[in-house]
């Protein structure tokens, strides 16, 4: 009995002295699930971490929650994609130094057979309208994420308030929504990056793309140090400079999944 | 006198229902005291109070002249060995059970072991030390619990119904230990029993009779349940009827003081035939300075004779005698 106690106490000691992390400084970034799930951050962050001897803690949530975390000062920088919400965030004084970083685009995906016939639609709003008319099924993110905000913008443009059994609010991440669209043979709005990484797993086709309303821009904002003095503004600023500088922009431009480029840098021209 | 216990106006109540009320009780050092009374009469409550595991709501207890209060309760408790009626053994080995109380007193390991093995030998369980306590029979459990109390070498030994869960041979053994503990070591022993004291080999110096939470007679072992009849002039037990000198309106028990009972070999005078019965001497034993006779005369009476009376009458076992109870030896309780 006594021997066991000693053993467990020793284990505890080891546990308690194990350092939480080795880097001296930490930068907390709230970002969207689509950014993290694309795998971009795995190549984008290490050069910055190495150069500044720091560690970037990535908290990936929906755009809404990411901005909320910034509002509460629980992160130092937010990296999201919903221009109206970002502008509001800055206007209310929660964020400073907003910069465009990169963009890709949203696409409307659905079953290959395209039961609603949205392929012939010229705009995204028109495509949505067709889906609503035929009531063939639409999976909404329903989680106040950037994609969800984009959905709402398009519905508004189509002058439709989606309701009824054909519109499902998933309340989940992009991947789960694509999975549901595949299982239910329904349509969904997705960012091209996430679609690309799922394309091999799910039998979903891009049925509408290219409309201006489908432009998906990613912006980075530092949390306002005047509002939250404890936020690591200095490092946040460095990170913004890195992302919008040549080094970061080139990493973004060079990131490919399955031979396809997922994000297009905004500061430098595409090589 | 340096009394072991001195209880003054002690009251103990469960949920405001008084369970025990003792106006005055003195137990001398080295005394062997029997507590006698029916179930629910307060014997266990009194023993637990003497063991300081129950604290009375009112009154005071002097223990070897010292007032017992919160500050010295633990120290007092540690001078007492209690054998509860239905003892609880810990889920561990017999030896761990016996040594635990010594361990928490800070007794070193080798002394602990020595004393525990000694105590187990006393109670007739040598070689039991590595047995698991939960695999013992009722009698063995009782004896291990006794060993646990004895190993503490307490100043006071309290035994609650020591005979209730044991077989005959175990009872005999325990009683012998208790007698030895009392006689050879001069330790105070208090034990309780709902059975007739006469059925024990133990001969207490004194018997306390408890009824409804009160000590109703010191030395009274003759306690007979029954009822009043004859418009208050008689008390009928199951087998015999007592004639009462004064009418009594209610009563459930009748006690007879053992030292006041008169014994004669000849038939008493007709004028003395009130409350007189013919009986047979069924047991004899020493009781302190005197002699105790058990006489079966319809009810079983315990009679205390002085040595002179015994020498004069030369009573012998199996002898038929006349037993007469004077009026002033009778008390009716309700």
């Amino acid at each position: 009995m006594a021997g066991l106690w000693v053993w467990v106490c020793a284990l505890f000691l080891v546990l308690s002295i194990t350092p939480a992390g080795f880097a001296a400084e930490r930068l907390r970034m709230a970002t969207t699930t689509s950014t993290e799930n694309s795998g971009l951050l795995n190549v984008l962050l290490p050069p910055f971490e190495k150069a500044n001897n720091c560690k970037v803690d990535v908290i990936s949530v929906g755009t809404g929650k990411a901005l909320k975390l910034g509002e509460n000062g629980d992160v130092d920088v937010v990296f999201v994609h919903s221009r109206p919400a970002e502008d509001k965030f800055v206007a209310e004084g929660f964020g400073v130094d907003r910069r465009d970083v990169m963009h890709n685009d949203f696409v409307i995906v659905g079953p290959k057979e395209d039961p609603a016939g949205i392929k012939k639609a010229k705009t995204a709003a028109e495509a949505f309208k067709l889906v609503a008319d035929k009531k063939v099924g639409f999976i909404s993110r329903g989680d106040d994420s950037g994609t969800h905000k984009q959905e709402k913008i398009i519905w508004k443009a189509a002058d439709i308030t989606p309701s009824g059994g054909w519109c499902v609010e998933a309340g989940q991440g992009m991947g789960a929504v694509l999975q549901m669209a595949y299982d239910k043979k329904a349509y969904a709005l997705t960012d091209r990056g996430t679609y690309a990484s799922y394309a091999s797993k799910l039998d979903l086709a891009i049925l509408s793309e290219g409309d201006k309303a489908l432009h998906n821009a990613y912006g980075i904002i530092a949390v306002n140090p005047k509002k939250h003095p404890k936020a690591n503004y200095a490092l946040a600023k460095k990170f913004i400079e890195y992302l919008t500088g040549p080094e970061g922009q080139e990493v973004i431009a060079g990131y490919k999944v399955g031979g396809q480029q997922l994000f297009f840098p905004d500061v430098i021209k595409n090589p | 006198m340096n009394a072991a216990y001195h209880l003054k106006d002690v009251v103990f109540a469960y949920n405001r229902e008084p369970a025990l009320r003792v106006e005055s009780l003195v137990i001398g050092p080295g005394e062997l005291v029997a507590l006698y009374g029916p179930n629910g009469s307060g014997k266990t409550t009194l023993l637990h109070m003497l063991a300081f595991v129950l604290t009375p709501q009112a009154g005071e207890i002097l223990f070897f002249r010292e007032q017992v209060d919160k500050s010295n309760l633990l120290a007092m408790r540690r001078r007492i060995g209690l054998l509860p009626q239905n003892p609880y053994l810990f889920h561990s080995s017999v030896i761990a059970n016996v040594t635990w109380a010594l361990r928490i007193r800070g007794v070193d390991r080798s002394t602990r072991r020595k004393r525990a093995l000694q105590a187990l030998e006393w109670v007739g369980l040598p070689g039991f030390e590595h047995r698991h306590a939960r695999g013992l029979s009722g009698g063995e459990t009782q004896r291990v619990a006794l060993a646990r109390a004895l190993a503490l070498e307490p100043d006071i030994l309290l035994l609650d119904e020591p005979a209730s869960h044991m077989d005959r041979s175990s009872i005999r053994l325990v009683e012998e230990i208790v007698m030895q503990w009392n006689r050879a070591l001069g330790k105070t022993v208090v034990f309780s029993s709902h059975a007739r004291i006469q059925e024990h080999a133990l001969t207490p110096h004194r018997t306390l009779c408890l009824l409804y939470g009160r000590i109703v007679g010191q030395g009274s072992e003759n306690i007979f349940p029954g009822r009043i009849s004859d418009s208050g002039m008689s008390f009928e037990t199951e087998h015999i009827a007592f004639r009462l000198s004064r009418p009594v309106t209610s009563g459930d028990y009748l006690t007879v003081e053992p030292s006041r009972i008169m014994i004669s070999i000849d038939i008493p005078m007709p004028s003395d035939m009130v409350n007189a019965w013919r009986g047979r001497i069924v047991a004899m034993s020493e009781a302190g300075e005197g002699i105790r006779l058990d006489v079966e005369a319809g009810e079983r009476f315990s009679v205390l004779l002085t040595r002179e009376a015994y020498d004069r009458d030369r009573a012998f076992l199996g002898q038929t005698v006349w037993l007469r109870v004077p009026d002033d030896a009778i008390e009716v309780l309700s």
Partner: protein
Amino acid sequence: MSFFLDSLLAAFHLIVGFDAEVYLIAWTSLKVSLVGASLASLTGVPLGLLIAFTEFRGKRGVLLALNTLMSLPTVVIGLIFYGLLSRQGPLGDLGLLFTPAGVSLGLFFLALPLIANLTIAAAHGLDPRLALTCRALGATPLQQAWMILKEARFAVICAIAVGFGRVISEVGVAMMLGGNIRGFTRTLTTAIALETSKGEFELGLALGMFLLIVAFGVNGLLFLFQRAK
């Protein structure tokens, strides 16, 4: 069928592959859960004994509250502690949000009512003669509590195992207070949630199997304790 077979294979690869990241995730899970469950045991067990063996005003209320707290969803505990640990919250200065210590704190409060409650149940299941025996043998309250603990060790260790099981398997607190930060606060459960959301179902299930193995190790240790002596 191939789904489960693939998951099993993936789990096997995760474990024998000694992938540093997976092992770090498992280690983080184990660390935050052990710290949370141990703190909850160290406070919940004495608290349970205290509540069980003392009479006080409002005891029924406390028991009812403890029972109710057991039904608290983990995400709600996560939200409550987010409110406390957020930089704007009253404990924001501690800087515990999105750290393993913050997760442990939330897990501690998750397991506390559970362990306290089960300890109370264990104490009520004890023989009433035990306390009397301890007192009659001259035990101090502390010595008595220790003996009671030893006598009730089967049930108490079971309570601790239930508490540990609850914290290592929950995802709400770990997600909310840890933030699922890769290489820092990512636990097995948040990793499972992440992989599942990415559609990597096989990997998610494989991580679940890994979690079971970790839990098996801890429970094995507790089992040894239970059997000791």
